């Protein structure tokens, strides 16, 4: 059973790092760098998990998340939000928008792996 993660992130270096980490953990990692069409990409790709950056060109991660939650088929999709602005306000907004987990950059690799595993495990149980 392949675990599929979609990473939406505009920083190529960060994308590469996460892809490296998750690939080695056995995930199938797809990436996308633009906010504009992210929802459509997610809908089509149907990953087990989405890692979503907040600051995206074209459309912010928050808006994407809200749109995802508005879609019936995607409203229980586990979403891990990443943000470089570690303010409480962003965390609140993310929770309100329906983020499953919220992480502040820079993060440690273990944290990301743990978070991804946890989220997947929760999604599988429910």
């Amino acid at each position, binding site marked *: 059973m392949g675990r599929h993660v979609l990473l939406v992130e*505009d920083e190529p*270096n*960060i994308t590469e790092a996460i892809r490296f980490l998750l690939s080695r953990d056995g995930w199938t990692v797809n990436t996308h760098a633009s906010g504009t069409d992210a929802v459509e990409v997610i809908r089509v790709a149907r990953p087990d998990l989405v890692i979503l950056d907040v600051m995206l060109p074209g459309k912010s991660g928050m808006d994407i998340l809200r749109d995802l939650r508005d879609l019936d088929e995607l409203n229980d999709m586990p979403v891990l939000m990443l943000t470089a602005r570690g303010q409480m306000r962003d965390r609140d907004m993310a929770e309100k928008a329906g983020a499953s987990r919220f992480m502040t950059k820079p993060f440690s690799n273990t944290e990301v792996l743990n978070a991804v595993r946890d989220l997947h495990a929760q999604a599988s149980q429910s």
Partner: protein
Amino acid sequence: MASLNMLIFVCISYVVLLFIVAFMADRLAAKGRTTWLRSPIVYTLSLSIYCTAWTFYGAVGYAARSGLEFVTIYLGPTLVMIGWWWGLRKLVRIGRSQRITSIADLVSSRYGKSNLLAICVTILAVIGVTPYIALQLQSITLSFSIFSEADPSGATYSETATVFWVAAGLAVFAVLFGTRNLDANERHHGVVTAIALEAVVKLFALLAVGVFVVWGLSGGIAETMARIDASEIGQWQMKSGRWTAITFLAAAAFICLPRMFQVMVVENDDERHLRTAAWAFPLYLLMMSLFVVPIAVVGLDLLPAGSNPDLFVLTVPLSQGRDGLAMLAFLGGFSSATSMVIVAAMALSTMVSNHIVMPIWLSYRGDGGASVSGDVRSVVLLSRRVSIAVIMGLGYSYFRLSGGGTALASIGLISFTGIAQILPALLGGIFWRGATKAGALAGLSVGFGLWVYTLLLPGLGVGLVSEAVFQQGPFGLSWLRPQALFGITGLDPLVHSVMWSMLLNAAAFTLVSLFSFPSPIERLQGAQFVNVFDHSSGPRGWSGSVAQVEDLMIMSQRILGAAEAQALFRRQVILQGGRGHLPDPTPTFLQTLERELSGSVGAATAHAMVGQIVGGSSVSVQDLMAVADESAQLLEYSSQLEAKSTELARTARQLREANEKLTQISLQKDAFLSQVSHELRTPMTSIRAFSEILRDTSGLAEDEHSRYATIILDEAMRLTRLLDDLLDLSVLESGQVTLNMREGVLMDVLDQAVSTVLAGADSPLRVKRRRVGENVVLKSDLDRLAQVFINLIANAQKYCDAERPELTISAHHIGGQLVVDLIDNGSGIPTDVQAMVFEKFARVNAEKAGGAGLGLAICREIMHRLGGDVTYLSGQSGGAFRVTMPLSLPKLAELAAQ
């Protein structure tokens, strides 16, 4: 025994005592301890200078000759005093509020400060009073002669020398205490106190003689009365014309005599003293006349026929061997004479000096009267002293010329009649606003002329007017006979003169006033005099008897607003202890209301408004002037308010702008911090992630290893760049940057920038330049300028999305400024974000990251520091930036071009 030497000794001792009293009083006044000096009793006693030697000695003689007619001399002043509320109070108030120095000053001041009138009154007063002074001198001489006759030692006595020395002594006294200093208020506490003492002495002396006569010689009141009825004046015998005329004359003279005016108005310290004097002075007069008839009757009885009844006061005690009593009586007469002479000389000298001598002196000086200063004081004092000496000299001369005979005896009433001519102008002046200067002059002239013609010349008698004139009239015009004007014969000469002079005086005054027109200053002064109680301080208030409280309410509502006015009235009702909504129009209430109103409309307007409704006073010229003043002030005030409100609005706008700016800055700061955080965390994320990968992952391929290390390096360098930029921007923004200004040519700067950007760049950007316009000499920080160009060119290189990117750089002058346009052939920046490209961390296209988004912000800061700007040129085909900077040294540019 009563030797002449003894008399002279007593006399001199008495004068010394007066000197001491006057001196002490002046000392006390100078120290400000004047409480008892200013008591109403002293004021009342000082009024007693009305009772001169003529009344002290003469009243008895008068009674011996004409029965009770003498009391008219006292009844006139009594009527004036008990009517003080009407007349004297106003006179005193005017005198105080206008700083009047004499009766001449009052008349002149009322009629537009006319000096001509002042001179007329002064001359009239001098002519009227000089014989009177002579009369006093005569009385002293006569009393001396009585003692001289009775002197057993038979000491030699020279009448002429006595009069001279008495006159000189009185002059010295008047000079010493009347002109010692120039008091702004013309008050002389020393003199007033001395004459108050003299008043006590003369009253005491007359009462003592009276008591001696009634109880000592007649044996009691009843016996005295019987003796009176049995005497030759034992029956009521009165010419009704004289009774009325003399009462009137005495009343008029009491007000108009310069010396009376001096003590009553000028020396008055407190208006309220009138309240006491109103009964105390009539009482004094009553006591002065109480024993006159008994003394006269007893004198007629005891003394041989042909004795001078004018001296009964002295001769009756002397004939009974009562030398001590006679001495006291002598001192009383001496006091009467001296106090009158001193005050009269003072008052006249003030008038003569102020209205005749000083104007002449000032006009002789010629160098602009008003500009002289300093020595004027001493000149005034000198002129007063000389005037006193001259007036005393005149009195003395008159005494010598008239021979000191019986001709003097009748001079008292003649003098009164002359002085009374001032009355119409005076009363008209303080009660009638229509009185004019021309009217006053006409009345005075007519009255003066008639007085001289009908009374003074005939009275002086022999030689001055020929008998023929008396019998047939001048030039045979019988209707102009001096004592039978218009053919009316049979009148008493005094009544005749008083009637015609006063009647025609008043008629001329009224008619000329009616037909002449007053000057503005006359009208102003007239209003101030007639309405003195409305304008001066002191007991002031509305008598609200006819106040229409409802009208006041309506008016107050208009001015204060309904609720507030009703509250005010209600409070007043409660304060007055009444019920209902409207208070009583008490003076307190009206004044409170006036104060409240004046807060809204100004004091004068409020006063005029309340006055109109209460009806207590008409609106005066001064009221109107004050209203005009206040209106002007209100106008000015409102324009000030307007200015202030504009200023306030401007300040509010500035505050609002500042507040918006602050809010924006605060938001910007938040956004900036947030951005910085983001920009820092992003590279650090990569660095951390790959560091951990390198550390934790075993068996990485060599190329992976090196690639990840390169990423870490790149991101670290990105961080460094970011920090550099932040630092740079912060320095620029805080203004702490030091600019290295030097001269250079634009072309070189651009060359350097282009080569810096293109060196090591792999993307093929073609830079097109027009070098002609670049040959310009600049004075600027060339490195910073180059930094700007590098940034802009790098931007074009980074973001130009054309297939074959091109950048055109062109330099030219626009409006005295050097302008460099950098335009590429890409798609440019979308209109909606053009406005924010210069903001910090603004990145139009995030995909081509690399910079921190601070480049353009730094460019703009630099250009601002260099006195120029960098803007985005919209409407160009591609991305277009324009750099402008001041073209400071065009001459140098030309030089460089050569």
